């Protein structure tokens, strides 16, 4: 028996129709074939403006003509709890792609002082909410003064903004970051430098929780995490340390290399340099809603080699003119009102049918015929991408580009690629050379076939040889089809059949290019040695128990803190890492269908093996802070935990899983424990 969202029985035949229709429509929209001209060109739209009823483009319209139970078109549910059933999925209104220029976020503006002046210990009297005193000044007050010279005053605010120039969608109510120049999402981009500590005052100026003005999702309590920073725990943005509107948290970012106070004093290991970080809300249980509502931004960290100036150091394209952060997200809009909507009741993972870059749906970007560095970030909530460059006028044209960084860390040498895959929270830095593409229009295309929150429909054979199709469709014998109707059980769609996300118009003026040519094989950083015996090897099993996302059979626990009448006080830390020690962590996933992008705070890791085989995929070869854990896989990670003390999480960064307890807190202390399976 088959049901729609409200438990109404539908026939097997109708269920099959619904599956087919959902995929057809999703692919049409996603491919950007949404303008009248496009659809007519494809023979999908008649002159009268009606869509050709080709293999069930609208299952609802078909259903009305049959004797199926009357669902009255009301049975639409945001999101993907039953992913191949359009009756359960909200489908956004049609929008015309490539109307909006790409927005390049401005640099975060500094302030000369903060009132009240930041204090070593939390300034509770002034409304500050912080878990502990700053650690860095305790290590060296001269290097890390309590009030560093670089200060930022950030208000998190609600605001309205258009996400497309297409008037079929209204201006949206969003949450963003305001450095004094007005709120925006993504927030302004930090330009930070190693050796220059800085402090951000994160003020929660969102509407108070008890105001009845929510737009349907989001919890206006925040804790802002700086993703991948080698940061002291009190400034990390711990999920359990959120605070309501009217309060603030001073977050101290030392901008110091790992090892500075341990293995490589006094300045740390240059080979641990971080480059592309991002900040985002991390409020426990509500991270997916709050980041979806806009609380994300970039933090680019430079040093004497990765200078941001193509005339010096590694000679990478100059920031910010030719070095562009790109934040990807996929979203859904209400079919009638056009308002941004979020599936509050989804446990599996949420996919959108609109693709945004830097807060705009399918923008265009005019570039000059030269090299650019792009910093690609998947902000989630649940989608994986495999990015190709596509020329729609010549689908057979392979347009290679260069991978230079994984999770924001430069790899030893550039690797030429045709495509790269990233999951939620992962970043890749790439160089695209437009020199020989002058005058052309090139698309950044996602060709990864993903139909639900489980992950890509077929896991790449490099990782995992078995094909795993969408379970509910496969159970009915409905193959995952390409838009041309051919069965497609591969992860990768054909050129032009994926999601055209960003249009590059190579029509900018010819300008000098003093950046390094990746083809000359420049050397960046070396990978730190992993040839060290770990103090301990810990195992983490990512699983699902009765619909509850778990790590080693346990669930997220922030501890109990007098929610009502008082009661038990739980120990919220699952294990203790010894400060300045080496550990190996084995992440295992026997769940069969789910891919979990696993993120660990504080320190980066290197992937030693996948199912006992050394990694071969380029994006696996560098330093990482998120590792994709594929179905039936065991991944072996290498860590050095250095310098800082305190509490940090490990969690799945499919934020829907994270919000449903697939997270564990651990902490670093002078003496570690020996818990093998925390």
């Amino acid at each position: 028996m088959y049901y729609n969202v409200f438990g109404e029985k539908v026939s097997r035949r109708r269920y099959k129709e619904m599956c087919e229709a959902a995929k057809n429509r999703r692919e049409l929209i996603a491919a950007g074939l949404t303008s009248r001209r496009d659809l007519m060109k494809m023979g999908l739209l008649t002159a009268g403006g009606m869509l050709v009823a080709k293999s069930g483009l609208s299952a609802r319209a078909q259903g009305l003509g049959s004797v199926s139970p009357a669902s009255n078109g009301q049975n639409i549910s945001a999101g993907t709890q039953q992913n191949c059933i359009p009756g359960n999925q909200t489908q956004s209104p049609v929008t015309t792609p490539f109307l909006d220029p790409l927005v390049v976020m401005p640099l975060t503006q500094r302030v000369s002082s903060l009132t009240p002046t930041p204090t070593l210990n939390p300034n509770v009297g002034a409304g500050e909410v912080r878990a502990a005193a700053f650690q860095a000044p305790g290590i060296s007050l001269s290097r890390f003064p309590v009030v560093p010279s670089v200060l930022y005053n950030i208000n998190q605010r609600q605001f309205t903004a258009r996400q497309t120039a297409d008037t079929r969608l209204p201006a949206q109510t969003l949450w963003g970051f305001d450095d004094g120049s007005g709120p925006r999402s993504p927030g302004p981009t930090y330009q930070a430098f190693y050796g220059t500590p800085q402090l951000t005052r994160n003020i929660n100026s969102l509407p108070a929780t008890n105001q009845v003005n929510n737009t349907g999702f989001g919890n206006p309590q925040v804790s802002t995490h700086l993703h991948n920073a080698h940061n002291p725990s009190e400034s990390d943005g711990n999920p359990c340390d959120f605070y309501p509107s009217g309060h603030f948290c001073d977050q101290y970012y030392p901008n110091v290399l790992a090892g500075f106070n341990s293995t490589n004093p006094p300045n740390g290991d240059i080979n641990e340099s971080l480059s592309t970080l991002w900040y985002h809300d991390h409020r426990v249980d509500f991270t997916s809603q709050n980041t979806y509502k806009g609380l994300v931004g970039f933090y680019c960290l430079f040093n004497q080699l990765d200078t941001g100036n193509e005339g010096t150091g590694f000679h990478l394209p100059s920031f910010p003119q030719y070095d562009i952060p790109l934040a990807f997200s996929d979203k859904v809009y209400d079919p009638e009102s056009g308002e941004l909507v979020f599936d509050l009741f989804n446990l599996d993972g949420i996919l959108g049918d609109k693709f945004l870059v830097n807060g705009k749906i399918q923008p265009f970007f005019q570039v000059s015929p030269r090299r650019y560095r792009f910093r690609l970030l998947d902000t989630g909530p649940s989608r994986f991408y495999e990015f190709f460059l596509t020329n729609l006028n010549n689908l057979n044209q392979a347009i290679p580009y260069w991978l230079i960084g994984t999770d924001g860390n430069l790899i030893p040498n550039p690797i030429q690629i045709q495509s790269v895959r990233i999951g939620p929270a992962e970043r890749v830095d790439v160089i695209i050379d437009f020199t020989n593409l002058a005058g052309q229009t090139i698309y950044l295309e996602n060709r990864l076939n993903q139909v639900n929150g489980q992950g890509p429909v077929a896991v790449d054979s490099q990782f995992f040889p078995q094909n795993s199709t969408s379970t509910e469709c496969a159970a009915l014998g409905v193959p995952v089809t390409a838009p041309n109707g051919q069965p497609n059980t591969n992860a990768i769609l054909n050129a032009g059949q994926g999601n055209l996300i960003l249009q590059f118009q190579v029509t900018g003026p010819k300008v000098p290019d003093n950046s390094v040519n990746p083809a000359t094989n420049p050397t960046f950083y070396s990978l730190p040695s992993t040839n060290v015996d770990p103090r301990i090897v810990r195992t983490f099993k990512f699983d699902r128990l009765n619909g509850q996302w778990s790590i080693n059979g346990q669930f997220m626990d922030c501890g109990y803190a007098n929610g009502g009448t008082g009661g038990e006080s739980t120990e919220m830390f699952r294990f203790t890492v010894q400060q300045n020690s080496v550990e190996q962590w084995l992440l295992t996933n026997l769940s069969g269908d789910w891919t979990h992008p696993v993120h660990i705070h504080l320190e980066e890791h290197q992937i030693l093996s996948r199912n006992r085989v050394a990694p071969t995929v380029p994006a696996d070869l560098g330093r990482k802070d998120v590792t994709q854990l594929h179905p039936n896989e065991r991944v072996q990670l290498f860590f050095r935990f250095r310098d800082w003390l305190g509490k940090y999480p490990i969690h799945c960064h499919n934020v829907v899983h994270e919000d449903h307890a697939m997270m564990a807190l651990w902490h670093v202390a002078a003496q570690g424990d020996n818990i093998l399976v925390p």
Partner: protein
Amino acid sequence: MADISRRRILSWTAMAPVAVATGVALGGASNFASGSGTLTQSELARRRIQRLHLPNVPLLTHEGKQVMFYDDLIKNKAVSLNFFFAKCDEVCPRVTANLAKVQKMLGDDVGTKLFMYSFTLKPEEDDVEAIRHYRQMFNAKPGWTFLTGKPEDMEKIRRGIGFSYPDPAIDKDKTQHIGNVRYGNEPLMLWGACPGMAKPGFVAESLSWMIHLDAPGPGIKRQA
């Protein structure tokens, strides 16, 4: 917030097929906007959540009283929602025993500021007598209501609040049923969930977020 009558919602429902039939092909859904009148964005969002996820179906409490799911149990309230069945011997006793501890920790808030609801997954077995007996086994206090109803209505609630699996075969297997506890504050549109098998202290903490709106996170409170 303006209250919208059931009749008005029903009138939107009735309009939907017309909108589809007249060729909203790509939008493919009901004509919600034309029924919106002067509703604010916030009110529209709240309506949308109710319409898609919180069906107003009749239920019977463990005391045999008839109630409507949305109107009587959810609307204008902070709530927790979970599923059980009386003869379940794995998940349900653990979750229900956990919730009994949670109720104790939340004290007087339960039944005054926050309402706990447990719904049977097997209404064909669990009549009023069975759920009353089950409730007594766990020594549930006032403010925690157990509910049964017509199978199709229980199914609407279960799917509405997302306690279903994408794979129909797994979804049918009630031993694998979703053990989460959904918590929410309906007028504020705050909705989250935590595992019913999580530490009861943290489940209580999570539920308390729906009523103690200005409290900082547990990580902060621990330091105090």
